[in-house]
């Protein structure tokens, strides 16, 4: 399941953000008549379609895996958290329908209807992502039921949708999807542009993708700050694990780097900024932060080092992208534009993977950070797993399958979406009448 999710999250992110870029490109084409934008829209739509198809099948696998791997969780919680999944089903259906119209309907519906279909794909992609994250946020802050003898009673599925973690998790994940996709697309095109600097195709692609990525990268630290404060309030043990904070007390330091030593109960080799954690969380250096020592050890997230390091990687990658975004905006304000600075373009090329790295790290932060619980404070992961013997076989099978798919998709994306268009391709495009 972890493997499937780690795989699926990449496709979901690109599948959410790519349609937006494709619609923007088509809209620019309709406004300007510049055929490079049309080519870009077509290329990106193929990318979105491949991503959507693989995202759809890996999402199908996930919806079954909920039952295949966690039958006890589903038996217990199905009635409570089925709602966001049902709604997601409809959003997903809408996306599939209009993607079909978008992909195969270039010459079957009017340009305006076509653009509208693309916009519906982009919107329903975001909405379905939001519903899935809502289900995840419920596992962090379970509400909408009363525990009676270990069973849920008085189930209220609507309350699930408005659980306390829903807002900050969905905002953070949605921005992350745009940020990661914007940066990976802009970065790869930047690498191509560096080799072929007159190529308008890469220029236009970078302009759109970097705009999307940069706006998201600048919003993300604000959303991250809000999320961290919400987690401190809702799941204090999680923030202690993020920071590797063992001791409870005021003037809690903000740790940069470091390796948590569980036996010695201290964080080694870290740069500590005194009182900063208290200040950032409660805006008050005297505020008391709960450390891991105030929780029973069998409730500690494990492995602690994974949570701590993933958190550092996520935040580090996030700030690096925000810095690149600021640099780009500064260049743009000085009117010479980002393409005048070779060093900026090189940096952009290097920062291509940062967003996806941050997404994967962030996923580790929230999922491993919730362990040992599958439903925070209510059900332990070990109690939810299927009794099926030989799960290792299932796991290996899925891993091989995903590895194979990942390699194939990466290859196809390269060939279909990123690579410089050949002159025949441009001629063919113009011949169709664009």
């Amino acid at each position: 399941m972890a493997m499937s999710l780690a795989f699926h999250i990449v496709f979901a992110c690109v599948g959410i953000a790519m349609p937006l870029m494709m619609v923007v490109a088509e809209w620019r084409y309709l406004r300007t008549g510049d055929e490079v934008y049309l080519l870009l829209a077509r290329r990106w739509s193929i990318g979105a379609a491949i991503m959507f198809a693989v995202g759809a099948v890996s999402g199908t696998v996930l919806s079954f895996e909920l039952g295949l791997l966690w039958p006890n969780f589903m038996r217990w919680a199905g009635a409570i958290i089925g709602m966001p999944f049902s709604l997601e089903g409809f959003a997903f259906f809408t996306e599939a329908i209009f993607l079909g119209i978008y992909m195969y309907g270039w010459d079957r519906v009017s340009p305006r209807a076509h653009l509208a279909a693309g916009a519906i794909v982009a919107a329903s992609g975001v909405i379905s992502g939001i519903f899935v994250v809502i289900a995840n946020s419920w596992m962090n802050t379970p509400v909408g039921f009363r525990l009676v003898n270990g069973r849920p009673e008085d189930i209220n599925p609507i309350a699930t949708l408005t659980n306390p973690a829903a807002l900050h998790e969905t905002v953070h994940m949605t921005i992350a999807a745009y940020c990661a996709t914007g940066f990976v697309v802009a970065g790869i095109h930047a690498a191509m542009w560096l080799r072929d600097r007159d190529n308008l195709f890469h220029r236009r692609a970078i302009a759109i993708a970097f705009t999307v990525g940069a706006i998201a990268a600048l919003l993300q630290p604000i959303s991250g700050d809000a999320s961290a404060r919400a987690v401190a309030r809702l799941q204090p043990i999680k923030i202690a694990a993020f920071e590797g904070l063992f001791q409870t007390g005021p003037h809690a330091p903000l740790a940069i780097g470091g390796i948590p030593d569980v036996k010695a109960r201290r964080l080694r080799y870290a740069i500590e900024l005194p009182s900063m954690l208290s200040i950032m969380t409660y805006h008050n250096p005297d505020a008391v932060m709960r450390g891991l020592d105030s929780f029973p050890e069998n409730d500690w997230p494990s492995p602690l080092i994974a949570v701590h390091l993933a958190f550092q990687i996520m935040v580090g990658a996030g700030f690096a992208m925000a810095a690149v975004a600021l640099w780009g905006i500064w260049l743009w304000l000085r009117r010479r534009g980002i393409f005048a600075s070779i060093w900026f373009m090189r940096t952009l090329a290097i920062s291509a993977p940062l967003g996806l790295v941050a997404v994967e790290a962030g996923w580790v932060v929230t999922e491993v950070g919730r362990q040992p619980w599958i439903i925070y404070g209510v059900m332990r992961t070990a109690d939810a797993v299927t009794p099926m013997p030989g799960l290792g076989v299932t796991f290996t099978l899925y891993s091989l399958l995903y590895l194979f798919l990942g390699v194939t998709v990466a290859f196809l994306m390269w060939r279909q979406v990123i690579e410089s268009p050949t002159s025949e391709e441009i001629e063919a495009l113009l011949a169709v009448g664009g």
Partner: protein
Amino acid sequence: MSLALWFVAGVLLVNLTLYALTGGADYGSGVWELFALGPRAGEQRELLTRAIGPVWEADHVWLILVVVILFNGFPPAFARIMTAMHVPVTLMLVGVVMRGSAFSFRSYGLCDDRARRRWGRIFAIASLITPLLLGVIIGAIASGRMPANPHRLSDFITPWMTPFCFGVGLFALAMFAYLAAVYAAAETADATLAADFRIRAIISSLIVGLIAGAVLLLSIRGAPLIWNGLTHRVWTWPIFWLTSAAALAALWALWTRRFALARICAAAQVALILWGWALAQYPYLLEPDLTIFNASAPPRTLAILASALAAGALILLPSYGYLLAVFKRRRRADAAVGLETQAPESVF
């Protein structure tokens, strides 16, 4: 016994039916790609690919909705099925993944001919195996008697390793291939291609009939509840006659080349078969102890789910109708002016 429960159970059945009629036929198209024969094999493959290209992803979502409604509306049944069916479901998912990705890689990938043929082969084989396994799982659900607390390896094998389950698997495969052949005959404007698929449809219709008889006999031991339901209830004969009438009407329409009519009759036939199964199994989700009444979610969840499904249908059905209208209804008009659905790769 609330209205919401009936509504949710009804929507579940309707969803499953729509999946069989649309997504099932898409699998069937893959099967015919594997068995594309004769001088027009290439054209046959092209027709099949064009027919499912724009719609298969949307068709596939019916299955996701079935799963989601099952685990939202009937969590205990979902948990037990998914535990006991771990092995066939896992294998089926491999099939789902391979088929979907292979199809999109082939459609959108600018690969050379050899690579395209290879993806096509993977797509076709996965289209053959996936419905077989889906049928096996349905067969096991119809048999019931899934262990409530499985722990030995055999508990995960015996519920579906029976002649009845594999009979249902073959039955599903044959039905889907039959639907695909009928649809293909109805959709093409080319008379020779229509004739190719007419023959295939007639042959597969006869095979469906044969397997149906065999599965019915196997159910005496494999799924006594179903056997009893199909033979000893009030509605037994009406359902039987209706299904037979639809099957014969479809056959007659095929014989006389009334393909649009054949499509309606074949769809009705498959829908009636599914409903006959559902009625025979009613009120059980899983024999002997899980019924739609005692394995359902609490009333409040069901009520909200029912309203969500109703609201979702308001968005979904017009959109789905629009999709079919854009790609299916205008085919004949297009053919008249020499236009056909352009697959995206033909643009470049």
